[in-house]
């Protein structure tokens, strides 16, 4: 496992002023003329590669809510990659009824002052639930717009008082062959694992989701607790979390273990870094009512359109190397 010690201050809280100002300007434009904002969106593919700090014109300035057409509930809950319930897109919706999301416990371990096993209610209780509407970009070249409910991961993590040695956060999905029929087939090295750098985990965009469309998270979407990291490819947004560890070393992650040349630790959405199997320049957007057989492809944005909120975390990094 390659090692990368990146200084990890909560840099989400020290967004450079120019980035911040650019964000306000974009908002101003959007408010002044909604049409102009739309035009900017439609023309995005023609423009030169967008500067990393550009905010998507469709979004609230904090990135918390996009005004783009959302994906229907039926589609968000019937088209899932959750290999613990089968490797087909329709398998999780068919098979995930065997998952028991309640009662649920989360183990917190590693480099923190407060560790242990916590019932889900206690784990989440101090934090009011927030609404977020995020784009979700799958590495396979399709995307959705999803209204989540949840709590910011950073606020939850702070309660456990990570020590100065905590540079990464590692997440683990439940791997119970009784509840999860797909575990019998070694599609991946179970349990599913993911990880974030500390500043990524603390970024206000990073959400621990508990709900979808105002309802409890359906099993196939990662009940009862999943991560949502909207500027990274979907597989980073780990589902049905049972364990969170603060670590000093970059944690192993499932898809990176399976195909290191195809899936990096960071896996930020990046149209300029192709996956060997899929171009990442554009995407099929699964959203809205009606027949999508003739729906148009759309351009993929750097950081999935969240550059204004997250690009500063990667300044000075070669994103082709750290894909």
């Amino acid at each position: 496992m390659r090692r990368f010690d990146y200084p990890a201050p909560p840099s989400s809280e020290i967004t450079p002023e120019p980035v911040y100002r650019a964000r306000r300007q974009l908002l101003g434009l959007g408010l002044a003329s909604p049409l102009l904002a739309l035009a900017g969106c439609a023309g995005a593919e023609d423009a030169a590669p967008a500067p990393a700090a550009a905010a998507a014109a469709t979004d609230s300035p904090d990135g918390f809510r996009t005004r783009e057409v959302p994906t229907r509930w039926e589609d968000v809950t019937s088209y899932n990659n959750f290999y613990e319930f089968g490797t087909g897109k329709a398998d999780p919706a068919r098979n995930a009824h065997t998952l028991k999301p309640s009662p649920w416990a989360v183990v917190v371990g590693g480099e923190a002052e407060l560790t242990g096993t916590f019932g889900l209610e206690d784990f989440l209780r101090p934090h009011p639930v927030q609404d977020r509407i995020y784009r979700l970009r799958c590495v396979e070249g399709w995307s959705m717009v999803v209204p989540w409910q949840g709590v910011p991961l950073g606020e939850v993590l702070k309660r456990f008082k990570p020590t100065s040695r905590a540079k990464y956060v590692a997440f683990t999905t439940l791997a119970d062959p009784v509840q999860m029929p797909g575990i019998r087939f070694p599609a991946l090295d179970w349990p599913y694992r993911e990880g974030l750098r500390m500043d990524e985990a603390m970024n206000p965009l990073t959400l621990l989701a508990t709900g979808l469309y105002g309802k409890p998270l359906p099993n196939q979407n990662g009940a009862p607790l999943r991560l949502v990291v909207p500027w990274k490819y979907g597989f980073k947004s780990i589902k049905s979390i049972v364990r969170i560890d603060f670590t000093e070393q970059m944690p192993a992650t499932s898809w990176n273990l399976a195909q290191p040349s195809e899936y990096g630790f960071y896996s930020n959405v990046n149209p300029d870094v192709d996956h060997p199997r899929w171009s990442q320049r554009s995407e099929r957007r699964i959203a809205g009512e009606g027949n999508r057989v003739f729906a148009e492809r759309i351009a993929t944005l750097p950081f999935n359109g969240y550059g204004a909120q997250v690009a500063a975390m990667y300044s000075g990094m070669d994103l082709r190397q750290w894909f």
Partner: protein
Amino acid sequence: MDWRWVGLKALAHALALWPLAWLVRAVIDDGLGADPVAAITHFTGDWALRLLLLGLALTPLRRLLGQPWPLRFRRLVGLYAFFYACLHLATYLVLDLGGFWAQIFEDIAKRPYITVGFSAWLLLLPLALTSTRGWMRRLGRRWGQLHRAVYLAGALAVLHFLWLVKSDLREPAVYAAILVVLLGLRLWWRLRRPLPQGA
């Protein structure tokens, strides 16, 4: 004219067109799920591969049954395999990539699974064009040699499927196993004694 054969051929056409009819209906009913373009791509690709393998099974079947009738469906099955392969390619070019044309060349050059898939279609193209009686006559012995390219097309088609899958290789592995059996039978018979003509 033997009316039983006409009936059987008509039945074969109907069976080969059944998947397309199902697909058209599903498109009209919006019954293909969240990502219909991906569903159409997979559906047409699956049927191209299935019919290609069925076409490759007819010559061994003739030999195993000791009956000539399977060969009478070989051209029909092969042409329908090419037909679904064309639908598959057209879905990718028109419905999937629509508007991002520059990506086509990048995909063919840079994505190994698309390179081999496109090569398989290219190999099938001359076989479809020379499938008429006239071309059979004109090419003579070389017709048989040319049409052996279908073995390579079958192998490339299976490779196309194997390379596009992320981690669960079970489904393409089934097709690969069938292909190995069909080509292996030919090799086995060839090694034991020369094949009779027309194989």
